[in-house]
């Protein structure tokens, strides 16, 4: 309950800071924030283009939110087990490219999900193994792996897999894409995120695993106090390795729902910022899987609604990243506050 209060406090303070900056730029903060909601399909816009409505905006919003849920779950699980997985971006890229490669052979949505899961798990396991075997700090190894994976993927795309017109990778086959693009219903045209139900189910399942299984109990004990976990007869290394593997797998699911769903292609030379935003989301959600879904909803409003806001208010879209950064800062502060109060 107190965690929820602190999270809300972090959001309110951040929004006030954002409002202050908007006001200093001579803009109307209330109108700007309303534009965020309108852009996310949560409020009516003044007018819509043909075949579009608030509902189609909302579906696009859900489409953007889906990978964020997976990514924040990945961070949350790792944090529960005592790891700071800052390598979600790299794991997402690895999963994305693996799924793209596989779908070129057999275009199947199930295989895309599976490939993403496995590719992410392999990267996560590598980080966990380095930690257990050689005591390599996971923050260092995962940041380094972010670069390694990004450049490998860039190399692969530029040499073998480039779409010369868009300067991006080739697009994934429609039969393998996790979002139904431009689906027609009544007189509307919309995107349907097929992975969204999976994201929500995964969140609930992860919550159950953490609260109700012996594995979840081991994860939490190992994360909070490795010495006590060892004294309790737990296999601390195996638990840690398992946790990082699963965290990587969740990041992999984020990767496929992003690069093979929300987007259809991978841009070479770019690390997705979602992996870092996911840290803010996870902290904001109190590292609780259900909290992560709620926090993803909120952060996606800011990131998704910003396009509409910037066009309406003539503001740089970076203001959205700025507000997200404020939230990260205050959420981190509130995490410390929460711990100190005990």
């Amino acid at each position, binding site marked *: 309950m107190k965690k929820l209060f602190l999270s809300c406090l972090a959001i309110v303070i951040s929004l006030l800071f954002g409002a202050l900056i908007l006001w200093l730029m001579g803009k109307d903060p209330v109108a700007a924030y309303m534009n965020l909601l309108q852009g996310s399909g949560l409020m009516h816009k003044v007018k819509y283009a043909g075949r579009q409505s608030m509902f189609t905006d909302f579906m696009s919003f859900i489409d953007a939110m889906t990978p964020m849920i997976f990514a924040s779950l990945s961070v949350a699980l790792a944090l529960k087990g005592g790891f700071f997985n800052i390598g979600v971006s790299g794991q997402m890229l690895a999963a994305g490219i693996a799924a793209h490669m596989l779908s070129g052979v057999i275009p199947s949505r199930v295989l895309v999900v599976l490939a993403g899961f496995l590719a992410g798990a392999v990267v996560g396991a590598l980080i966990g193994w380095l930690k257990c075997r050689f005591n390599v700090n996971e923050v260092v190894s995962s940041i380094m792996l972010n670069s390694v994976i990004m450049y490998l993927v860039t190399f692969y795309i530029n040499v073998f897999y480039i779409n010369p017109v868009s300067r991006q990778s080739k697009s994934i086959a429609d039969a393998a894409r996790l979002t139904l693009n431009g689906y027609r219903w009544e007189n509307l045209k919309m995107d349907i995120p097929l992975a969204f139900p999976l994201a929500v189910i995964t969140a609930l399942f992860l919550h159950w695993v953490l609260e*109700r*299984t*012996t*594995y*979840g*109990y081991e994860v*939490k*004990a190992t994360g*909070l*106090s490795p*010495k*006590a*976990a*060892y*004294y*309790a*007869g*737990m296999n601390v290394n195996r638990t840690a390795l398992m946790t990082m593997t699963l965290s990587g797998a969740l990041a992999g699911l984020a990767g496929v729902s992003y690069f093979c769903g929300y987007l259809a292609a991978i841009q070479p030379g770019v690390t997705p910022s979602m992996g870092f935003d996911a840290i803010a989301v996870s902290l904001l959600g109190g590292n609780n899987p259900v909290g992560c879904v709620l926090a993803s909803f909120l952060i996606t409003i800011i990131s998704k609604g910003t396009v509409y806001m910037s066009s309406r208010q003539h503001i740089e879209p970076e203001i959205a990243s700025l507000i997200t950064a404020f939230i990260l800062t205050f959420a981190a502060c509130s995490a410390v506050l929460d711990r100190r109060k*005990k």
Partner: protein
Amino acid sequence: MSEPIVEFRHITKRFPGIIANDDVSLTINKGEIFAVLGENGAGKSTLVSMLFGMYEPDEGEIYIRGKRERINSPRYATQLSIGMVHQEFRLVSNYTVAENIILGLEPERKFLGLFPCVDIRKANHDIAELSERYGLKINPEDVIEDLNVASRQKVEILKMLYREAEILIFDEPTAVLTPQEIKALLFVLDGLRDYGKTIILITHKLNEIKAVADRCAILNHGKLAAILDVKTTSTDEMARLMVGREISFTTEKTPAEFGDTVLKVEGLTVKTPSGYDAVKSVNFEIHAGEVFAVAGVSGNGQNELADSIAGLMPCSSGRITLNGQDITHASVRERINAGIAYIPEDRHNVGLVLDFTLRDNFPLRQYYSPAFSSKGVISESAFNEHGQKLLDRYDIRSSQGNATITRSMSGGNQQKAIIAREVDMQTPLIIFMQPTRGLDAGAVMNIHRQIVAERDRGAAVLLISLDLDEIMDCADTIAVIYNGSINKVAPASELSVDDIGLYMMGVKKE
């Protein structure tokens, strides 16, 4: 003639729940080696820390060279030319010897007559000279991390001398040294005295005091027990004063009835991660219905002994058998299943997951068993009922019952929770490591009763404690550990406190 340099007058220092120093008055003369002797927790370090400005006394005054001083910081103590070598060395490990010594007092020179910079050449030269003069052989250009413990200690001593300290305080300087290094250190101390330095030596090793000290103050539970002239006092007498006191048998206990052997330890040797033999081929047996207590001064291998029997540390040689089953190389979990309960010394980091609720801490060592989970799924109701049962049965006070976050509880109740958890497992062997450290008298009594109750149930109890009262109170058999070896094993009725003290100090050996 002797001229007083340090004077403590009626010093009292209190910490929450404990009086560390109770009306202590003593005078230390210039140019003598003055030893402060006492058991763990007798208040030696506290008393001397006040001289170095780490604490201030609650009552009483300190006089330095006849002048009353309020020493409120180590910096001020240094100005009064007081220096201290702490038990934990305070050195920058990737700096050289000279750089460490001059830190804060760097000799300067002007580069190109303009830019100030550290004159390291002069520092090296000065320190080489200094170490030559006091017989502390060391190369000023060596890097600290390449040096062994004894050399690092020399650096600490040189640091004091470089600051022209006249009063040198050593807090348990020999605890980390080998016998040969100890000999060398004592020789250095002797030399420093000849240069007119005053040395205050905190220790609980009697033969060292006998070897170098002129006079010695004995502290006992914060009170000054005696000030002795070392030359004319025997070590036996010192040991007696150090531990001697009224022993009150507060725990009622029936005569023990020993059953079969439960735990058998043969030739157990345990290496620390740094490769040092902390426990050296120890042998003993514990029977059902016996409280086997291990007495000893802290750091003589007790932790390693307990951890290796519980499986938290590997044994490098020897054999451990529990009820005839060889468990020498069994994992922690296999030992729990074989029937070893363990109350560890560090209740915050080892015994409990402090951020767990009480309910989640209770099954910490059993959660995987069929009583608490099946096929990897935890039974909420089993967790809840077990928690409630222990709360009621062992009178654990918590603000929100089962849901209390363990960190928010008092130390006494945290310990109660650990003991409840372990005792409730009803194992054939139960290990109590320092079970009452830091607890108040009521809680101590309660735990002693539980120890005896466990024995009466027919469990073999291994009690390891630094507190002699506790050992005298609970033990049926007493073993004394000194320097990793067990010096003496005897029925409790055959050993007096004075005897135990002598064995603890390594003065007497089997």
